[in-house]
């Protein structure tokens, strides 16, 4: 991907904001991103809005918060990967040369969705009777059967993400003291072996990224390193025996392997060149599996790498540096954009206490409904 850069990023901290509207959260995140880019809304030529739970046309309606300039607005939904998929469309538009500056806005109010679904006691689909955490727990049980994984490995990942989140002012979960493996293991069991602290929270929030031509980035913010988007790929499932058609929430691991290979090839880089990585860690078992599926370690090595601290801040390749979905939160639409926010700050050297020293290449991986995988590689120029 040539001449595409992140011009600005903004977030409305994820949390349980039942009395704050999507419009307010989205406006604040959007204005923050515009200020960060040194741009006005008048400069935005097109916009992509991403959300999962809001009503029809919520994107166009929310964009009116910034003013009515007549710009084209499109809606993107791809479950958890909504924000990442919307970001990809903006990058493709800039790359094509049609637009120079595109806004990507993600927002969601999961608290409202939970409140409204509680009124209906009959699941719409058969698989909805089963808690999503149950499907991810099946992955963990299988791993324990095939490899030397223990619940403590999952707890160590969760503890890392909680402690990273405590260094990020935009993280939903803010641990007051260092979270230990023991504390994670002692939290309430949800679906064996996954506990509440190994699972992401529900929440509300917004995030915004301004995408534009890389040559503009230097002109708009002369004193700041330019963060380019050098690779983007989105894939859906390929059929293989044992494929799950009902309740495909986890998704085939092969999808992450194939999508990561595609972005590595586009970028002319490999997993060893990544200085930090964000993944779809809705549950700790996911992050463990993605270490291997994204090539950050060899198959079967994840447990040893976790024990060594390879993926912690200060380790070989820090993962979920902002707290990940487990601590920073996962409202839905804005989640993938929060990964871009974090990676952009890290590559600019603006990540304060959680800064990965000398970070030049960062990868953002998201899964949506177990049926789509989106990966981007960002690079400091």
């Amino acid at each position, binding site marked *: 991907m040539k001449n595409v850069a992140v011009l600005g990023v903004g977030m409305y901290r994820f949390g349980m904001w039942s009395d704050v509207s999507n419009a307010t959260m989205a406006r604040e995140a959007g204005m923050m991103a515009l200020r960060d880019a040194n741009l006005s809304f008048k400069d935005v030529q097109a916009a992509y809005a991403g959300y999962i739970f809001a009503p029809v046309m919520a994107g166009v309606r929310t964009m009116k918060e910034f003013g009515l300039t007549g710009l084209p607005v499109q809606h993107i939904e791809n479950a958890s990967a909504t924000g990442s998929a919307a970001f990809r469309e903006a990058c493709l538009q800039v790359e094509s040369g049609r637009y120079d500056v595109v806004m990507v806005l993600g927002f969601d109010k999961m608290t409202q969705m939970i409140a409204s679904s509680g009124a209906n*006691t*009959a*699941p719409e*689909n*058969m*698989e*909805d*009777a*089963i*808690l999503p*955490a*149950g*499907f991810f*727990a*099946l*992955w*963990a*049980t*299988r791993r324990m*059967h095939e490899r030397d994984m223990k619940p403590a490995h999952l707890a160590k990942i969760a503890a890392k993400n909680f402690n990273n989140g405590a260094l990020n002012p935009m993280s939903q979960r803010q641990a007051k003291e260092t979270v230990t493996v023991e504390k994670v293991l002692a939290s*309430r*069991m*949800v*679906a*064996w072996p*996954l506990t509440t602290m190994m699972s992401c929270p529900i929440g509300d929030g917004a995030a915004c990224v301004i995408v534009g031509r890389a040559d503009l980035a230097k002109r708009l913010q002369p004193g700041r390193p330019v963060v380019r988007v050098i690779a983007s790929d989105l894939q859906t499932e390929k*059929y293989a*025996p*044992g*494929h*799950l*058609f*009902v*309740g495909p929430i986890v998704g085939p691991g092969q999808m992450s392997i194939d999508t990561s290979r595609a972005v590595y090839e586009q970028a002319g880089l490999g997993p060893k060149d990544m200085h930090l990585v964000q993944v779809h860690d809705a549950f700790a078992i996911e992050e463990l599996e993605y270490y291997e599926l994204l090539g950050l370690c060899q198959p079967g090595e994840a447990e040893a790498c976790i024990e060594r601290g390879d993926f912690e801040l200060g380790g070989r390749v820090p993962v979920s540096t902002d707290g990940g979905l487990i601590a920073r939160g996962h409202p839905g639409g804005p989640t993938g954009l929060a990964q871009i926010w974090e990676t952009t700050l890290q590559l600019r050297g603006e990540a304060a206490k959680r800064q990965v020293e000398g970070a030049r290449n960062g990868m953002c991986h998201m899964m949506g409904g177990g049926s789509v995988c989106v990966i981007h590689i960002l690079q400091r120029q």
Partner: protein
Amino acid sequence: MTESSRLRVPIKEGFFTVPDDPAEAPKFLCTKCQTCGEYFWPRRAICAKCLSEDTVSVECEGRGTLFSYTFVHMPLFGSTNLAHMDGYGVGQVDLPEGPRIQAPLAGKKDDFQIGQQLRAELDVMREEGSRDIVIFRFRPVENQA
């Protein structure tokens, strides 16, 4: 018996049979591709593997092998059956014909073992007037009710 005289209705049509005899295991409503031989659950018009439209509807026996399992410590969503309030097992079950099915499991966590044989049964989720709304689940064969 009032139990057996109640009409049993599937939680969703098109996924499994509800036999007249309550002792009989439900069957899975599957599709077989006539071109490449692959089986699918649930039914579909076009083969997901070779894209052939030459597919036929078949019923697969309600039995399989446990690929993975968990125990969820929450009530089964949409169920008013008191037996579901303390949680429920969940498994991925491989039918001998190939399809992998995710479903609730009958029993407690320590009853389950990867590789064990299971048999499908119907389980009442809630009552609606004179009808019972049923979902399928699997039970370890060594532990038949």
